[in-house]
């Protein structure tokens, strides 16, 4: 096993170990913490396909996270309030089934990523960052001013959604679902990176001129990556809303986009497990330092600065060594 593989396994095992310990020690709060880390890691794994593999610095991924969250909120809201959702002549009763909710979340965030990506990818560099940020803000203000689903106050879902054969109200079982989905997303991300598409995407990141010279349709390749990225982050949004049983415009805020990006950079862009390490570290710091000071993010800022200045490969880069 290579050093990178050992580091990856250690990261995965430590996220798994915490809730198992918590289960034995009967500390359900720790399980929730680990679940939160797994979900945020999933959002980061999504962003990393655009950012790490594609070099697309999106500061608007909260849009997809929030759309996933609202997909869960809206579908479950209609089920819990027994008010059917009218889509033209069609009547939809809503649902409390996770798989269906996930599908809606993935498809709607994917559709949004397709549109936002198609418009944003006409630009590059700092303009791309700004335009993705602008789209995110548009959705944020839209959610605030849309009264049907709680507007600024957000939307509460009283009972966690169900999954066939599992009791999702049991923290450890819900954690298992999130951990499994994180594993699946990591597997997809790894497969993608090793595929012909992944090579083309990497080449487009490193040299657009080279990619064009071998006949690659760079905008279309990047759009596909951006869409897949948005879908995974959208799925994470649905799980996040389910964890909190609450969705609000905060999920769509640019601070959320920044947080997801922080996981990726802390852990190491271009590293498969970077977002996982980053999200775990973030949740840990939030838990440990958050108790000491409400300004704990100052320490986070210092850490981020140190990583950017001294460890460009992030935490995983530091541990695993080697280039990229």
């Amino acid at each position, binding site marked *: 096993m290579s050093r990178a593989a050992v580091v990856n396994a250690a990261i995965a095992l430590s996220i798994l170990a915490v809730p198992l310990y918590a289960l034995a020690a009967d500390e359900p709060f720790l399980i929730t913490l680990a679940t939160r880390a797994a979900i945020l890691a999933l959002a980061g794994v999504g962003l990393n396909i655009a950012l790490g593999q594609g070099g697309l610095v999106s500061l608007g991924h909260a849009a997809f996270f929030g759309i996933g969250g609202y997909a869960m909120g809206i579908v479950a809201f209609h089920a819990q309030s027994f008010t059917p959702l009218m889509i033209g002549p069609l009547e939809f009763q809503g649902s409390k089934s996770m798989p269906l909710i996930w599908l809606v979340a993935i498809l709607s965030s994917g559709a949004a990523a397709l549109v936002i990506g198609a418009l944003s990818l006409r630009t590059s560099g700092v303009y791309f960052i700004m335009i993705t940020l602008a789209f995110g803000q548009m959705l944020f203000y839209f959610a605030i001013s849309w009264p049907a689903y709680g507007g600024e106050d957000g939307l509460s879902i009283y009972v966690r959604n169900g999954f066939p054969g599992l009791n999702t109200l049991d923290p450890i079982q819900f954690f298992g679902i999130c951990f499994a989905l994180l594993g699946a997303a990591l597997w997809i991300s790894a497969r993608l990176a*090793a595929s*012909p598409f992944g090579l*083309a995407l*990497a*080449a487009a990141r490193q*040299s657009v001129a*080279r990619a064009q*010279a071998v*006949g690659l349709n760079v905008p279309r*390749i990047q759009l596909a990556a951006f869409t897949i990225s948005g879908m995974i982050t959208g799925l994470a949004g649905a799980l996040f809303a389910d964890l909190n049983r609450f969705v609000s415009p905060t999920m769509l805020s640019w601070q959320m986009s920044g947080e997801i990006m922080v996981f990726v950079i802390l852990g190491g862009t271009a590293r498969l497990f970077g977002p996982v390490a980053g999200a775990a570290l973030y949740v840990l710091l939030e838990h440990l330092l958050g108790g000491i000071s409400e300004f704990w993010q100052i320490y986070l800022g210092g850490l981020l600065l140190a990583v950017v200045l001294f460890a460009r490969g992030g935490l995983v880069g530091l541990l695993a060594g080697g280039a990229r």
Partner: protein
Amino acid sequence: MTPVLETRALCKTFGALEASRDVSLSVRPGEIHALIGPNGAGKSTLISQICGTQPPDSGTVHLMGQDVTHLSAAARARAGLARTFQISALAPELSVLQNAVLGALGASGGSFRMAARVMGDAALLVEADEALDRVGLTAQRDTRVSDLSHAQRRLLEVAVALTLRPKVFLMDEPMAGLGADGSRALTALLADLRNEAPILLVEHDMDAVFVLADRISVLVYGRIITTGSPRDIRADAAVREAYLGEETP
């Protein structure tokens, strides 16, 4: 015999600077057409217009008789234009082999396959390894491009172009920085390559140009002042004055 590649009256200006002035030239099947001219004459700008990375102000580019002026750079590459860059443009974080496989992948058109393993694709690997072997980079196969020497990058540029199996090669100073041995080896390769596809060769190495070229065009201040056989060009007084005079003591 219809030319493989033809430019018709290409014009391009950068402000007051005329980089291309009515440039019409052709590349015929089986030939090496050398384009020479002093620094800043507009040679690279011409290649860029042919490849579609810079639009001409006016004029057209034709590949196998088809007007490709409206096509993107990527579409022209797929149509059969293979370019090597004067300043290497490779994927620096990828290995030599991966860069070559990338070329083969672009040519195969399978860049949206997401389930397969690209480095396990036998057809792409065969194509890439063959190209690396031809330029003599087999020993560096697994080296990261950022760790290559300047000369090795120049050769990898050529290897990636080979994997495209193009209709015409456009090479912008492939010999630059290769050294005497390297130039000789690449000269032998290009002499052989013309049988697969003709070459438009921009080159400052006059020894290589006069050995390789079937025809030579001389570009000065964006204008082709003459086109002819190596013998004609050597004898041309205007060329001697404009260009070769600087080379011969």
